[in-house]
């Protein structure tokens, strides 16, 4: 899976699982500040990503996720390795 395919599926998860507005989702969008995802929402996002992509995201790596782009990079990196 290339990065753009990861991005596409991840954005779909954001819309279907977290109920985010597709129009507001950009790679630069910050989950908490721009997309109004609360702290539990970030946890739900991680769970959804783990289910969707079959990866494990440890807490210490999850802390680095601020924006949609960073989430894509994290998942993409996991799938690569």
């Amino acid at each position: 899976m290339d990065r753009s395919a990861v991005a596409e599926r991840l954005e779909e998860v954001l819309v279907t699982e977290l109920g985010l507005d597709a129009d507001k989702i950009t790679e630069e969008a910050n989950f908490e500040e721009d997309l109004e995802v609360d702290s539990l929402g970030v946890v739900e996002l991680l769970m959804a990503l783990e289910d969707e992509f079959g990866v494990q995201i440890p807490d210490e790596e999850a802390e680095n996720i601020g924006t949609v782009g960073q989430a894509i990079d994290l998942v993409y990196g996991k799938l690569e390795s």
Partner: protein
Amino acid sequence: MSRVALVTGGSRGIGRATAIALADDGHKVAVNYARGADAAAAVVAEIGDAGGEAIAVGADVSDPDAVDTMMETVSTELGPIEILVNNAGITRDGLLMRMSLDDFDAVLATNLRSTFICTKAVLRGMLRSKWGRIVNVSSVSGIAGNPGQANYAASKAGVIGFSKSVAKEIGSRGLTVNVVAPGFVATDMTGELSDDVLSAAVSQTLVGRVGRAEEVAAMIKFLASEEAAYITGQVFRVDGGLSL
């Protein structure tokens, strides 16, 4: 609407009555037990005879691996758990001066650690379905304290703090967490008390008798229902007016 419920410590006492009450409400019920396999099977049979659906699942609920296995069994056989009743509990009564650390640890493990383990185990599924009811069984001992029950009261007070915190964490997702605090209820657990202690306790109630397990189960059943959606983070005493 039929949901899937798990009642820990469901083979006897309040847990047994709760399993039967939830099944009576149309829910599919997993009856957890630690050692009472026969008693749990009897509860399952009673529910089945009444036209309900139930399974018995053995697990030490203070053991995370055993709980994981139990949750998988319930999910496979009944479906994702949407109602969790953390009821499993033990006593190891004694005055603090005579209470061993083992007695403290054992009670905390079965009564409080289990609540943490089981709640965490069901949370993911509940968050996904955006519906869930968690009812934790505490005790008036956990609210007021009780001589001879420093360990038990600590565990039951812990259940209250735990429940209120989790209620705050997940309230926005359609999940509720509430606590039922029974007073003196006729079960095997209170059967261990001396007649003197029981009659003294009864004299403190307004109703003038010990409670029945079914009377506690009725409150748990309500808190697990659709109708209780606007109630969360609360402690409900079912104690015959013991508190007044």
